[in-house]
């Protein structure tokens, strides 16, 4: 997130969450604050966290300012120059270490989530440089390698502790808090904000009857979303919207630019699109997988009127393209019609 940082003018306490003090095994409370912009619109969650990051109390306390977006997703952290994070034997984190910590915290499905800290300590560490088939078998599956790649070297406890603080109880409370402040205004902001998570959240909340009003933005989101987002839109967009000539044209002309799974969904939805979609897709026959082509031809078969002059011309052209793996399916199809 970039712009949100620039216009914060309000800061209010909203709730506390707790974490375990690894030295005294007691709970420590941390305050979460809601940051709003000059117009009073909520933009970020924030917490100044102070916590031990090792089991024996020898390490320095970590002081870290953590920021989450309004969905509770970690977005960044800040460290005061006088409270640098430390790792093994009090060595300070270097620039690369801070970058790695940020990458680790961005991973909300980190393997750290499923492991106790004791699971992370390899009693007989294996030098990765000597990996061969024998040594690979000496490691417990991919796990240790995966963990090692996730962590700041020598900063295991710091990484583990901070990750669980960032991705623990605080996030659950933020999700609940968002529900309490949810409004049409906020959802409109989410839908038009340049962040995929916000867009998808808004789309899930968006009633189908409102799709038409936001069709242009939904198409923009479709163009930039990942495969999950594209699939969601293609499944959810109501048939009466998709079937509009202009909307059909915009979605189906994306065919060659989008991922393979979304292409399948476009073909799956041919029957609820404007008939132009059939002809548009005939331009992209050589981009289809075998099963996609079969689905497309099945659709053509269902109504001879679907095969326009241009469409037929494209079918013939692709059937002669020996560089297209499945041109033989087109030949078979053309022989039958």
């Amino acid at each position, binding site marked *: 997130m970039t712009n949100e940082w620039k216009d914060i003018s309000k800061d209010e306490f909203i709730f506390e969450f707790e974490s375990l003090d690894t030295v005294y095994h007691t709970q420590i409370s941390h305050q979460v604050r809601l940051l709003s912009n000059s117009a009073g619109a909520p933009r970020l969650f924030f917490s100044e966290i102070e916590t031990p990051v090792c089991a024996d109390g020898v390490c320095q306390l970590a002081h870290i300012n953590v920021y989450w977006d309004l969905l509770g997703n970690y977005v960044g952290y800040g460290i005061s120059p006088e409270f640098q994070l430390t790792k093994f034997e009090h060595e300070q984190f270097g620039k690369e270490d801070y970058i790695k910590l940020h990458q680790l915290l961005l991973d909300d499905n980190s393997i750290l989530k*499923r492991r106790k800290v004791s699971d992370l300590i390899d009693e007989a560490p294996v030098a990765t440089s000597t990996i*061969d088939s024998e040594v690979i*078998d000496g490691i417990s*599956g991919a796990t240790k390698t995966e963990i090692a790649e996730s962590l700041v070297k020598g900063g295991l406890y710091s990484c583990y502790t901070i990750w669980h603080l960032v991705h623990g109880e605080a996030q659950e409370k933020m999700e609940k808090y968002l529900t309490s402040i949810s409004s049409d205004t906020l959802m409109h902001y989410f839908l038009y904000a340049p962040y995929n998570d916000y867009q998808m959240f808004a789309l899930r909340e968006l009633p189908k009857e409102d799709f038409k009003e936001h069709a242009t933005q939904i198409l923009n989101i479709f163009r930039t979303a990942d*495969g999950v987002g594209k*699939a969601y839109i293609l499944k959810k967009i109501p048939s009466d919207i998709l079937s509009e000539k202009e909307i059909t044209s915009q979605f189906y002309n994306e065919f060659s630019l989008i*991922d393979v*799974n979304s292409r399948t969904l476009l073909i799956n939805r041919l029957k609820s699109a404007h008939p132009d979609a059939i002809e548009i897709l005939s331009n992209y026959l050589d981009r289809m997988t075998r*099963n996609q082509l079969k689905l497309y031809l099945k659709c053509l078969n269902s109504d001879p009127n679907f095969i326009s002059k241009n469409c037929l011309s494209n079918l013939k052209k692709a059937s002669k393209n020996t560089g297209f793996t499945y041109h033989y399916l087109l030949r078979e199809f053309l022989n039958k019609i």
Partner: protein
Amino acid sequence: MKTLKLILFICITSFYTNSVAQDVLIEAESFVDKGGWVVDPQFVEQMGSPYLMAHGMGVPVENAITNVNFKEKGKYHVWARTKNWAPGNWDAPGQFKISVNGKVLKNTLGLTSGWTWEYAGKVNIESNEVEIQLSDLTGFNGRCDAIYFSQSKKMPTEAETNLASWRKAKLGETTIPEQQKSYDLVIVGGGLAGCAAAISAAEQGLNVALIHDRPVLGGNASDEIRVHTLGIYGKFERILKMIDTEHYPNGSYKAKYDQERRDKNVKSYKNIDLFLDWRAYDAISENNAIKYVDARNTATGERIRFKAPRFVDSTGDGWIGFWAGAEFSYGRESSKTYGEAWDKWGELWSPEEGDDFVMGASVLWQNEKTNEVHDFPELPWAADVAKEHKAIAGEWQWEFSRNDLHQIDDAEEIRDHMLRAIYGSFANAKKLDENKNYKLEWVSYLVGKRESRRLIGDYIYTFNDVKNLTKFEDAVVEEKRAVDVHYQINLKDSEEPDFLSEALFYKGPKYYIPYRSLYSKNISNLFMAGRNFSCSHIGLGGPRVMLTTGQMGAAVGIAAAICEKYNVTPREVYTKHLQEYLEVIEKQQ
């Protein structure tokens, strides 16, 4: 060398010439000496037959050889049913030749997209005893399903020859297998679930047939696939320890250490008849009860009809239930169907609208580091899939699923995609000096599936049973492993390879699976154990691993014995004899 007995000579009248022409169909898997070629029976239902494959991992394999008696000498045209398994703008990876009595036929084979007949050439047969050889040219998975000799020049078309009836006619098969065998319980599928079912039923005194389409037992745990087992033993520790493995890493050669022990333990039961290399191909039901299961030897083509009062479907793909007309499901249900949404993961966990985007199949592989430099060729046909990805070994994340590919119907394409990913990634890694001493030690050619058909029972097990800690009165399986479901990582980042996955976990306390999920709702004498048990897509996420499915097997083996004792259906074990059943299970500890 023995002469192949299965070949049938059929005289057919040529439509065009009105003359009598001789033709001979040879199923490649029947070759007496398979050399370095392997029998691949995984895709029989899709392409019609097991086939021979030259799985040499880049090194051409030894010739497959067989001898055939020809009744008629003369000139023959020869075709092979084969395919180019990675078609594209490059040389086909799996090329091979046929030689007849030492004469190499003119045409190279394995060049055409999709399973089809390719013309090998013509040959003059001058003696009745004919030797046929398949010569692999590449070491990269050339495949031959059948060879067809005909005195007619008319090329068989795929449309007529991939039909089961055509092959039956050519091979002279009757509809009903001549051999018939009767048992108390017939179990199809020799993974851990099937093995456990056979052992527990045999220990209860039943005469059992265990039919498995591979030469070794264990399914995904076997030395052939090498997925390590996960889960707990539940009430069946003694039984499962007989067939389990040590926790070797996925793909490790250590899988072989427990292979022999597992096979020996199952074979030690005198009342288990083990049919290795037999693949079931049909289940015949009347009045919603299965009467027979028909199976065929994957190499010889010999057939047996298996009769029993009850059957266990532990095929993984739910084939017995499917053939018999059992209700089944496939794919991801909508999140509302069973209320399985998890907002944190949204569509990746359970979609608002159901779809067929299930967890994928893995093909595991492993390297060997040597003291010598090993070359590995550049592979244009693999680069298309691997792109820039480099790897010297695989793990569970090597997994493929795509929403236009069905895990059963398109399993061969899925397997082949994984082979291209493996060979291509290894070829990329070999370009680095640090990997010059690595060679491919092992690549599986068997698809290790996670999810496909699920047969519907009296109870459909879902994620809610895990979340709510449902303690069923008929709980017979218990598990504490986290529920995890996989998605392809390229869904989140299109720059990532399409053959790698990631797991989403839900960790809770111990959960239980009811007996009612282990028998069919509408086929009255069918049990199921394994990933085809009655559950939702997310419900499968936790119990899909092998020790959990092994528990299912052990539980249905005991239930089958109760059925036998009282002459009742699987459902009636629940409605009439549950207490006795649970007591027998309790004694297993």
